[in-house]
């Protein structure tokens, strides 16, 4: 069975994929759905959900449409999740690859560096970074990337080490290929699967992290994101539960979807570990 087919037989993964596609679609269509943007004060504040036509999820503390905020928030969550993951990969993959491929002092040095970053308390570091750089979309993304690359480096290092031991890599050496070309063309492509699985989970974690930072008031004030919505609404949670409830659900669903996809990919890539596979 091909990877894709195996993936599609996994009901959880399919559900995840469906949710994610929906979220992406909504994010892309945001300007079409709500041309006035998420900040427009459209009605009385604190309108209860399902009470007013056109405002199915009610309005927030300034009379802004909660649904519009959710729709625009999808863009930010996905963007921060994706970009910070990409950045983390850009740091972690080369570092891990070099460490795993060259071994010896390169490995030693790279792993010390990685360990160093793993010793610094992650979330605290993210907070300090955002506070220093001042909360903007860029600084938040950078901070998330900086705290999330070490596991990537470790994974890639382990994978590269294991792939480098395979005989076809020896064969490539004997073919006279250069180290760089072996690393890039023979080794790395064969480590892609676990990296993809990890990346899908990292996007999920990054979304959670972004929302946590926003909750602490370290969000970009010009950007409507889900974390921002919850953070802004937490003080009114008693009187206007829906303001933090719906963005919370949006986060849970998106993160859940990404996790389901990650697990589905993992199962599809490692059929011998999945429960349905034969021993």
């Amino acid at each position, binding site marked *: 069975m091909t990877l894709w087919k195996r993936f599609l037989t996994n009901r959880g993964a399919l559900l995840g994929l469906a949710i994610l596609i929906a979220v992406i679609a909504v994010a892309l269509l945001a300007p079409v759905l709500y041309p006035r943007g998420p900040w427009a004060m459209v009605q009385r504040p604190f309108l209860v959900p399902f009470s007013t036509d056109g405002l199915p999820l009610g309005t927030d503390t300034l009379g802004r449409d909660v649904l519009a905020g959710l729709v625009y928030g999808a863009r930010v969550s996905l963007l921060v999740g994706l970009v910070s993951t990409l950045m983390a990969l850009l740091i972690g993959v080369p570092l891990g690859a070099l460490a795993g491929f060259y071994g010896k002092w390169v490995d030693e040095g790279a792993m010390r560096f990685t360990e160093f970053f793993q010793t610094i308390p992650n979330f605290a570091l993210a907070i300090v970074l955002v506070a220093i750089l001042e909360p903007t979309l860029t600084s938040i993304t950078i901070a998330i990337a900086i705290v999330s690359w070490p596991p990537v480096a470790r994974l890639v290092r382990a994978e590269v080490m294991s792939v480098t031991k395979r005989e*076809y890599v020896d064969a490539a050496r004997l073919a006279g290929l250069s180290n760089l070309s072996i690393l890039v063309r023979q080794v790395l492509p064969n480590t892609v699967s676990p990296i993809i699985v990890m990346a899908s989970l990292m996007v999920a974690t990054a979304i959670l992290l972004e929302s946590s930072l926003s909750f602490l008031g370290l969000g970009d004030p010009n950007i409507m994101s889900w974390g921002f919505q919850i953070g802004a609404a937490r003080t009114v949670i008693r009187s206007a539960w829906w303001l933090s409830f719906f963005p919370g659900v949006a986060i849970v669903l998106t993160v859940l979807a990404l996790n389901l996809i990650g697990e589905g990919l993992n199962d599809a890539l490692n059929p011998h570990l999945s429960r349905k596979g*034969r021993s």
Partner: protein
Amino acid sequence: MSVLKISDLSIALPKGADREHAVSQCSYEIGAGEILCVVGESGSGKSMTANALMGLLPEGVRVDHGTAEFGGKDILRVSEAEQRALRGDRIAMIFQEPMTALNPLMRIGDQIAEVYEAHNRHRPAERREKALELIREVQLPDPEKIIRAYPFQLSGGQRQRAMIAMALALEPELLIADEPTTALDVTTQAQILKLILDLREKHGMAVMFITHDFGVVAEIADRVIVMRYGEIVERGTAAEVLENPQHDYTRRLLDAIPTGMVPQSVEVAKAPALEIRHLKKTYNTGGGLFREARAVRAIDDVSLTISRGEVLGLVGESGSGKSTLGRAVVRLVTPDSGSVMVGGTDMAALNDSELRAARHKVQMVFQDPYASLNPRHRVMRALTDGPIAKGVPKAQARDRARELMETVGLGADAVDRFPHEFSGGQRQRIGIARALAMDPELIIADEAVSALDVSIQAQVLDLLRDLRQRFDLSILFITHDLRVGAQLCDRIAVMQKGKLVEIGPVSEVFLNPQHDYTRTLLDAVPGGGWGQAAE
């Protein structure tokens, strides 16, 4: 009187498997004190029956039809609890991989005593005593120490002995041994086979011995069953089957076995293709925080020469340094000192860029057909990457690749396929074509046929023999299997613990070994006596 009587047994595979039944309509019995060998190649379904008897069938696989009568009951139909009561008590089993078959976190003594615990025998204190007795019985050294040892502290052979001790704990009527010696070195294998024979003698238990190796069959079997695709194709006493096989398949299997018949070697006296002088390589393991540094001499002052057109067999057990030597010749390992002269170049002395330019001189055929080809690259790429890097024009390299695929018998069109579309034997052929594509002066074949089934092994050896004649190849053929070595090589070199202990023409080494170790090795070859008798 039969201990076990299997009638009309069929075991169904789950949907989507390559065939419907792992085992179909098999009937046989094992008598008390009898050793029955179940022989077959991978996928023949030979282990499935054993698993069914033990109630250890993998998920999705189930008994479809038939009975297995043991102690007056059909043990395929009894409840899980009854089956559990049988397991380890009246039927015991040992497995192929001694390295993984023991719980790494438990002491050997506890793992043995656990058998008593599982069946509620003896008081805890006595269990230890019993375990100690068993350890003595399977001739493990220093029993008091072994009982407290963890599996990782034991060698493969010792672990297999510990496994046997466990199996013997409750004096089973039937011992099922699933390829118990396949993963062991040849000398260890001989010892374990002897141990099983002794124990059979002493306890009179029946043994169902599953193997792929007719050599082992010759050593141990009373009766033999040959299986193919889940069906029994031949049965009889050991002597009948080995000497007078009735079924084509059996005959082919037997023919495929390198018999150990020693060919008269051709004298080759041309210029040397490879000259190794005083080669040394020492590995320093450990030196970390938690362990003491240890120096292992993988290659200890080895010198040898391979003439142009010669095939030199390099044999030795695991850890003898034979593979390290092969890898040092291609400079996948950099030796500490000494020289490796190939066509006037000292491979051991080149720097990185010189080395890249000289790589094509020596090529290698690897052991694992599944790991030696990049799963993401088409065959064409595997065959042309090297030549192109060497400077051969692309079109020419591609033509050559097609040609080579014809040569190794896969057809020119096969270049556009991915490795996973080929079987293990076919992949080894691709590996050989890849080596040839570089027009090397020397080929290192590192256990190139070890991972293959016997019949496939024979085909690949035939191909090598053929190529050798057509292209006048110089080959360093590394193997742990002396019989294979004897078939292809002109001269044999024997390595032990990094040292070259003997080197000479095949006939000399086999018929008139000079070194004790060589003799031990030859004696340990299973079915050695039978092989010679066939001559």
